[in-house]
């Protein structure tokens, strides 16, 4: 990594933080609807993995996906437009907060049903094996809560039985909605569940982006060399509630405060200064730049048009298919555009 890379990694983490903070504000002003799950506190995980994965590696995650969308390379303007449900959003305003993707960037969403994307990730890896994309690894993220659902176990088992190149990443932020790991999981360390499938596994610290980078690139190398799945449990923490409607009765303010002192952006900043990679002034400039990117994203999203009525019937099917609206067959057929 050269200095430019360090600075851009730092800036990415700050942009993700700022975009989430602005999202919370826009949500409270009624500009973002539905559910909103913020990634604040977990930035080192997506930035770390995003900066060491290769272009052929597929990324697939759950509904806490804005950070992943940005680290996968989607322009924050496009992310913000999707949050506001606008035409320029990555899903043209039809997906929303939980359903962001960009197939050209190998970012496969954004899936809202807890754990349902886990078997799909196994299928993505199967696709690569079948087509002999030998260097590709599918990187699949999920929360600690998703490891208690059947999808997780069927997906893990299949990946091991078929020796699929999947990096299973549990972003353990220690709560499945409001229920702590200790109250929901039979084992206290999520990584132990991989043992049941004879799968390599490890628990790593996830608040330091340099640490995430180091461990994940080592594990990706192992998968590329040896094939087969690997489960990484990455310890992290979300500072905000599960979603914007979370009263947070389940954890003490002191607990949140303790983790905030270990802030991933603060840790990385101190590292960059201590290692003399960047000065405080240079990092302040990055902060200002991130502020500007965020502001431009909000302005772009606000100015983006609402999807037109035609969008309602686009993409139901790939092939031309008769469509009906309120009991009448429409002249135009739904098809690709």
């Amino acid at each position, binding site marked *: 990594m050269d200095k430019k890379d360090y600075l851009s990694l730092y800036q990415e983490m700050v942009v993700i933080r700022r975009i989430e903070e602005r999202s919370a504000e826009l949500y409270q002003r009624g500009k973002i609807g539905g559910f909103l799950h913020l990634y604040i506190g977990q930035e080192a995980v997506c930035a770390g993995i995003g900066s060491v994965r290769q272009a052929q590696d597929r990324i697939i995650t759950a509904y806490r996906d804005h950070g992943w969308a940005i680290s996968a390379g989607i322009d924050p303007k496009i992310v913000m437009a999707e949050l506001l449900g606008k035409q320029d959003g990555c899903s043209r305003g039809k997906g929303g907060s939980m359903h962001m993707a960009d197939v050209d960037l190998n970012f496969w969403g954004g899936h809202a049903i807890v754990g349902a994307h886990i078997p799909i990730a196994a*299928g993505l890896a199967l696709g690569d094996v079948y087509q002999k994309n030998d260097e590709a690894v599918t990187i699949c993220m999920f929360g600690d809560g998703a490891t208690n659902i059947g999808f997780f176990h069927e997906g893990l088992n299949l990946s091991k039985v078929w020796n699929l190149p999947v990096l299973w990443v549990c972003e353990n932020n220690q709560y499945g909605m409001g229920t702590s790991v200790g109250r929901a999981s039979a084992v206290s360390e999520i990584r132990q569940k991989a043992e049941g499938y004879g799968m390599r596994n490890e628990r790593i610290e996830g608040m330091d982006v340099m640490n995430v980078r180091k461990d994940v690139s080592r594990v990706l190398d192992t998968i590329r060399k040896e094939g087969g799945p690997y489960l990484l449990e990455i310890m992290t923490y979300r500072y905000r509630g599960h979603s914007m409607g979370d009263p947070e009765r389940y954890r003490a303010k002191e607990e949140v405060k303790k983790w905030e002192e270990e802030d991933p952006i603060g840790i990385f900043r101190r590292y960059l200064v201590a290692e003399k990679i960047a000065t405080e002034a240079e990092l302040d400039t990055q902060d200002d730049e991130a502020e500007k990117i965020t502001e431009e994203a909000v302005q772009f999203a606000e100015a983006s048009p609402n999807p037109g009525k035609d969008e309602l019937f*686009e993409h139901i099917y790939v092939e031309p298919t008769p469509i009906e609206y309120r009991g009448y067959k429409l002249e135009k057929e739904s098809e690709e555009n």
Partner: protein
Amino acid sequence: MARMTMREAISRALWEEMERDESVFIMGEEVGVWGGTYAVTKGFYDHFGPDRVKDTPIAETAIVGGAIGAALTGLRPVAELMTINFAFVAMDHIVNEAAKLHYMFAGQFKLPLVIRATSGGGRQLGATHSQTPDAIFAHFPGLKVVSPGTPADAKGLLKSAIRSDDPVLFIENATLYQVKGEVPEDKDYLEPLGKSKVQREGDDVTIVAYSKMVQAALQAADMLAEDGIEAEVVDLRSLRPLDMDPVIASFKRTNRAVVAEEGWRSFGVGSEVSARIYELAFDYVDAPVKRVAQAEVPLPYNADLEQLALPQVEDIYLAAKEVVYG
């Protein structure tokens, strides 16, 4: 043309499509070494090998979820669920993923995916293995639901389903596997998805059916002909998209209709089709549309009780007489 069973027609369609396109592969329980629980994929494993005929664990979520993922990478998986009763285990992947990913990501995701499943009762398999819940799956926009009633359609529709870029649930009635018919041998013989078809012409009454009830309707039509009543049998073939045009065209001539399905009446195919007849051809109605369907009970094991619950040829015959004579 060659005379063959429905099982052979389906098997032939799969085989030809796998020969034609390397990206087509099969995954499911016992599809490989065993040769398929209904012997549809017999001989496939030896010919195409374990990479293209993949035996899976008994884990429907992994089967359908895995097939969705593989389809997203551009492959054309044919995922086999041994019976549609097991589709409930994979319901989330069928409903929340397969039917929605293309739309929800504004066309970025494509799912050239076929899910094959057997449906229907009459084999003393008890309540959990004998359902005909086809209509449930037709409820979801984004999914195509196809169910052939003849061997020729089975071949032509399955080939179209495999070549389609949309997710298709292909429902086969297990008691039709032995039914024989003339099937085109052309390797590019395709029947369009989402198009109903008149299987028998007649001017006195319209019988709308699909899958096994097409065969029953054709038998009922023969019985009606002996009474001097000419029935037109319209085979829906696809439940979604539902093509009402041939139904309405027929009804406007006959002014009378019976809708037959093997599943339960409530919220079923007959409910949908008859509602649409009233919406689209109210001025042509000479008698209330009759629905023939399964008795509203979980299917019992005992053979006599089971047949009592299932719709029979005679039920269609009597319903047709009723709408004709009032």
